[in-house]
């Protein structure tokens, strides 16, 4: 055994000295992927690279490294033309890219195996009255972009500003044939490691978004970095564009439409042709907030209305809870995550798991998390409500507020619409009964789209078809993308449904809007019906967490249990495309509660002081009666036990 161990060690050492590590090759395993277990005296070959597993040192290794392009060739500061660096080859030299690419942010093409739904990418076109929640993950209520003719290329163009790069932007199998040449021109959008890990304050995610809009996918990461400058637009280049062959774009007026080019800051390269990456493991909140911001859709009182999470205010960062291993499967922190992912330790990353110690969770108290007493709150509340109801999102008002999210409203990129009530109109908070049976606050979106009923299924029409055939009929070109959602009269709806029906003789064409399905009957009258597909889409929100002094219930039971409580009796306006449809839906609707019962129950709280008084009075009366006779009983017992009592009895008998 010892001889074998020595032989293997010698062979490995020899291979290192003889072959070294070729800077242009990625296949040579690095020394640190070999581990020696000294207790058992045998060598185990892992698949990991040097940067996949920490040696335990809590400081961050200095990333003074060479840049590599997408073909694995080293980039020199004097190269002509300059090529954008590739994260797959540059970062992938030390970190196994194939392990990372299945992470939460990157594998959005994969159906979600957990029970938690999330924020979709929202396709909004007010001129065609279309609001479609899109997701590749198969969440109920969302639509796969492919099903509405949205190819990954177009998806990237529309939503790539708030996307990290990943499978849909680099997996050849997901490409559509019609976009083949454009992918060749733009290049692949690999995972942008810098979007999270670059701590350089000059890293510009807005520049990344701009590059995506220009279809400079290959150049996007480099353009956002502090040591490179990208100009030009791949979107203006012809299908046969070749960076190395200027003949392919000789017909393009480069004065107005230059080809994409990159210029590196030569001062950032050291004598060894290495560049310093300011890498952080403990990522700052700003990186996360670029894509994960929820803000009130109002310019008034922003000083007071914009919430900062109490955890962030206390000095924590997002990644303190939303951790991941090398696989980049981000911990989401919802209550049943430890069950879904079959890892009990994940329980400690949920609200309850961190703040409340229990039999199944010994990891409570992370970062000094206070243990809430919840004085005076009956435990029934914790069976019916999630923690986020009282502690997260905005306080409920007479109507839910309109909010903006980074991904839906392109927050943080150049030129977003800063007007109030910018589309899409997302309402928050709306309290909904979740999959686990508990009520939770959610963001709510009223969907609106043109669809057909085919074999009892509601299928949205292809977006290109809608743009070409329905949008001209609607004639809403003059409307703005903010303010009140545009509406059409019944007559217009009838005309459109009638016209579009000619394209689908075998199917029924419908308009899904405001919670209803609109179709034409045999007499060309509108038939309005409820349908599961017409239900608005909502997703849970857990941030921003308000401090205890701002939680629901801090003012007593009447915060929720009163006849004018916004928690139960707020009205949710329906965002409808039909003229004169100004419906509202009660907050109890989505909670699955009976409004009448809740009203009665709320009124009963007026009698609570009376209840307490009567109970206390009755308890005092009963206690005094019992006590008085108990004292009498004790007195008799004491009397019967006394010596004088026996003497008197004896004498009386005599």
């Amino acid at each position: 055994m010892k001889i074998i161990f020595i032989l293997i060690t010698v062979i490995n050492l020899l291979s290192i000295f003889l072959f070294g590590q070729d800077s242009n090759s990625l296949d040579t395993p690095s020394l640190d992927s070999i581990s020696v277990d000294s207790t058992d005296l045998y060598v185990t070959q892992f698949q990991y690279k040097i940067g996949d597993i920490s040696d335990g040192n809590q400081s961050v290794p200095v990333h003074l490294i060479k840049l590599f392009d997408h073909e694995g060739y080293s980039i020199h500061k004097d190269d002509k033309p300059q090529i954008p660096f590739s994260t797959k080859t540059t970062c992938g030299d030390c970190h196994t890219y194939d392990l990372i690419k299945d992470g939460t942010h990157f594998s959005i093409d994969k159906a979600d195996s957990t029970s938690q739904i999330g924020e979709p990418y929202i396709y909004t076109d007010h001129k065609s009255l279309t609001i479609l929640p899109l997701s590749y993950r198969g969440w109920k209520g969302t639509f796969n972009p492919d099903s509405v003719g949205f190819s990954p290329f177009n998806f990237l163009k529309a939503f790539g500003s708030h996307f990290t790069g990943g499978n849909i932007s680099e997996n050849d199998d997901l490409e559509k044939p019609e976009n083949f040449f454009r992918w060749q021109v733009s290049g692949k959008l690999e995972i942008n490691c810098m979007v999270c890990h670059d701590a350089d304050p000059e890293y510009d995610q807005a520049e990344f978004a701009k590059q995506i809009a220009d279809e400079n996918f290959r150049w996007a990461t480099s353009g956002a970095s502090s040591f490179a400058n990208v100009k030009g637009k791949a979107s203006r280049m012809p299908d046969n564009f070749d960076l190395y062959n200027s003949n392919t774009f000789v017909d393009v007026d480069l004065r107005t439409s230059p080809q994409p080019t990159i210029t590196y800051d030569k001062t950032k390269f050291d004598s060894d042709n290495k560049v310093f990456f300011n890498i952080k493991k403990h990522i700052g909140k700003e990186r996360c907030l670029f894509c994960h911001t929820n803000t009130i859709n109002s310019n008034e009182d922003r000083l007071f209305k914009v919430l900062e999470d109490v955890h962030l205010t206390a000095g924590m960062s997002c990644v303190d809870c939303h951790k991941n291993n090398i696989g980049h499967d981000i911990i989401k922190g919802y209550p049943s995550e430890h069950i879904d992912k079959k890892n009990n330790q994940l329980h400690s990353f949920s609200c309850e798991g961190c703040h409340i110690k229990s039999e199944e969770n010994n990891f409570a108290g992370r970062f000094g998390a206070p243990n809430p007493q919840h004085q005076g709150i009956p435990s029934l509340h914790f069976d019916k409500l999630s923690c986020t109801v009282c502690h997260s999102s905005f306080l409920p008002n007479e109507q839910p507020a309109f909010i903006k999210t980074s991904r839906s409203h392109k927050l943080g990129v150049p030129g977003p619409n800063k007007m109030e009530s910018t589309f899409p109109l997302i309402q928050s908070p709306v309290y909904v009964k979740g999959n686990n049976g508990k009520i939770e606050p959610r963001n709510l979106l009223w969907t609106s789209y043109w669809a057909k009923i085919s074999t009892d299924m509601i299928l949205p029409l292809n977006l290109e078809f809608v743009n070409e055939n329905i949008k001209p009929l609607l004639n809403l070109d003059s409307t703005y993308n903010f303010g009140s959602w545009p509406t059409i009269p019944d007559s217009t709806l009838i005309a459109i449904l009638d016209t579009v029906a000619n394209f689908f003789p075998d199917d029924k064409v419908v308009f899904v809007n405001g919670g209803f399905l609109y179709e034409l009957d045999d007499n060309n009258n509108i038939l309005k019906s409820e349908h599961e597909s017409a239900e608005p889409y909502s997703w849970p929100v857990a941030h921003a967490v308000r401090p205890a002094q701002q939680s629901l219930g801090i003012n007593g039971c009447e915060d929720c249990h009163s006849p004018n409580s916004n928690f139960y009796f707020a009205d949710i306006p329906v965002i409808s495309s039909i003229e004169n449809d100004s419906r509202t839906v009660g907050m109890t609707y989505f909670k699955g509660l009976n409004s009448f019962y809740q009203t009665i129950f709320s009124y009963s709280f007026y009698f609570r002081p009376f209840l307490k008084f009567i109970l206390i009075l009755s308890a005092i009366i009963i206690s005094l009666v019992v006590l008085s006779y108990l004292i009498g009983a004790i007195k008799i017992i004491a009397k019967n036990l006394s010596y004088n009592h026996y003497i008197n009895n004896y004498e009386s008998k005599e």
Partner: protein
Amino acid sequence: MLPIITFIILLFSIIYFFISLKKIGIKISNLFSRFRLGLTLPQNLSHKNNFLKFWSIIQYIIINLTLVLFIFMLLSSFIPTAITGDKLSGIFLVIHITIAPLFSLALALMILLFSHQMQFNKSDFDKFAKETNINGNDSLVKIAFWSLSVLSVPLLFSIILILYPLFGTELQNFYITIHRISALLFSIVVLTIIYFAVISKHK
């Protein structure tokens, strides 16, 4: 599964109760009158003395009211918990908390009005009703009365403490458990005394 088992047990208990009554020749229509006779509830409502007559009526009302309210409290608390296995909530909770102050006041008055005549005396210690024949001042009724009185104390105080924001979740759960156990024992005592009152041999 537990709610189903509970429901089956309850159903069989009720069926067994009525079969037992039939075996000893008690008709269901006579249940209430037998219960009143068994406890010799004050029913001298036509006494010549107006004050005594008035006081008898008061006692009569208090007893019956307490009994009726107890039945509502029993059903509203045990039906949802026994059948569904859930904590008390919804319409049953509303009924329970609406009737609670009335029941507690009626119970307090009943204890106040009857405590003196329910005092134990020497004869109670000399004889103990071995038969199921009970009368108003019989030992069994007195034991039941004072058991109810003592159980009323934790029953009420446990819920009073929960109504104020004094204690956290853990202690709240503890007091709820106290309330539940007290209520269960209270109900057992009441149902036992009702049973013996109904089946007792009346003179």
